């Protein structure tokens, strides 16, 4: 159930700490590099605390090629990926890989004109490389919000992938971007989730799991 006052609990930018044994779980809507959440985690780590996620895990999750290499190593199906500085086979999903890249932004390109425009944008005019993931013509994109690895409405197949992704990256709140081809799913990227984008059932899961962690 959504409780009275819950709106405030998950206000934009709020960070929630839950202590379980020797671990401090850090719940936030954005774990990106140099955010308030990231620095809260780094500060705890330097004090010798064990955080979930660790600062290293947040970087691994949001830098797409690293995310996919790590996930693949853990047996999670991922899209093939390559790094390029201009050319890209079509259709494909594109991500920036540089300091100014927004981890939540991806582009699906299916024609050369769109690809050229997107590449120019995400490479900052050719200054940086980018990551592309070739997909099939019939491939669709399926973003799924995972809350401590749990999902509100995903199928069993996707739900078990989200659980596995949580086991590997340990981000309490994350958008899993899957490429779906028929009944096959492959991870494309992990991106931040805004509290405001959570459906009611997802907020319920978040509240419930946080209470469980609170009571250990």
């Amino acid at each position, binding site marked *: 159930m959504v409780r009275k006052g819950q709106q405030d609990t998950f206000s934009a930018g709020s960070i929630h700490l839950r202590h379980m044994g020797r671990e401090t779980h850090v719940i936030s809507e954005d774990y990106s*590099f*140099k*955010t*308030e959440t*990231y*620095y809260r985690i*780094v*500060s705890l780590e*330097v*004090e010798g605390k064990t955080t979930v996620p660790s*600062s*290293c895990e947040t*970087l*691994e999750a949001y*830098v797409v*090629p*690293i995310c996919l*290499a*790590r996930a693949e*190593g853990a047996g999670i199906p991922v899209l093939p990926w*390559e*790094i*390029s*500085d201009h050319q890209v086979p079509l259709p494909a999903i594109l991500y920036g*890989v*540089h*300091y100014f*890249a927004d981890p939540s932004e991806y582009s699906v390109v299916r024609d050369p004109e769109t690809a050229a425009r997107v590449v120019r944008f995400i490479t900052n005019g050719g200054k*940086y*490389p980018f990551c592309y993931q070739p997909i099939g013509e019939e491939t669709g994109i399926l973003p799924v919000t995972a809350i401590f690895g749990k999902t509100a409405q995903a199928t069993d197949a996707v739900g078990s992938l989200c659980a596995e992704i949580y086991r590997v990256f340990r981000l309490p709140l994350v958008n899993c971007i899957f490429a779906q081809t028929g009944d096959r799913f492959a991870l494309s990227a992990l991106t931040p989730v805004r509290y405001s984008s959570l459906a009611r059932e997802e907020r319920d899961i978040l509240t419930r799991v946080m209470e469980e962690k609170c009571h250990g």
Partner: protein
Amino acid sequence: MGSLGIFVDRQVMGSSEQLTALIRLRDQAEAMGHTVYFIFPVEVRKVARVDGLFIRSRTDPLHISYVAAKLAVFHGIPVIDDPVSIQVCSDKVNMYLHLMNRNVRIPETRFLSKREITRSGAEEVFATLGRPLILKEPSTSFSLRVEKVETVDQLLKVAKRFIKLSDWIVAQQYLSSSYDWRIGVLDGKLLYAAQYIIPSETFKIQDTVNGHLVYCAVRSIPAAEVPRPVIETGVAAARAIGRGLYGVDIKVCDDTPYVIEVNDNPSLEGGEDTSYPDLYHRVVAALVGEGPG
């Protein structure tokens, strides 16, 4: 015999000084019996095929160089700079937290978050750190986004610009000196020492003055001529980060060394090795061993 990968990008290869340093490194590695490959960003997967990786492109956790470092670690390949060193050194907040945690002496330092960037907050920072003071955006490199401010208005203007790039920024006591020590440390041991002579037009080792780039002059100094506390401070600072290759910048004020920053991926092309002819040999050996040569 091993294979050494050197991860580079167009910017590095476009600099004649850096290219010369890379060729010297390659020659040293080949003289030691190793094979050398230059690996460019689009070939990052080739990292998995080498026995050791040396990263010579700008490092940042969001850059392709970090991908190269992580892939090397995933494949169990020795790498300089390792991902942790990149993560810590590319972020001044993280770096200073590590130094503070190990009681390495640094200038008085405060971290400012968005809510502290107010007129009263600025006055309080000046009261704590003195005037002028230095503001740094945490991802600064090559002295970019490092500014000296003297008034509340200046502080607010610069801080508001930096806070768009990072939720925390660094405010630091200003220490004046005509040169910085650069202590190169590899695997927790002194690798080289140099003085970076700061251009008279600026307080940074690199700056743009009237539209022109001005660089510090580099003077390689034999270890025996470097004050012992400077070397000890440099080594302690490097060890607070890890066991990789670092260039530690130190200012000496009132005979006391203060660490200004610890750089991963330190410059080697400025003549730092003049008094240290084994510098490249030691870097190669750390990555792929001594080799049969």
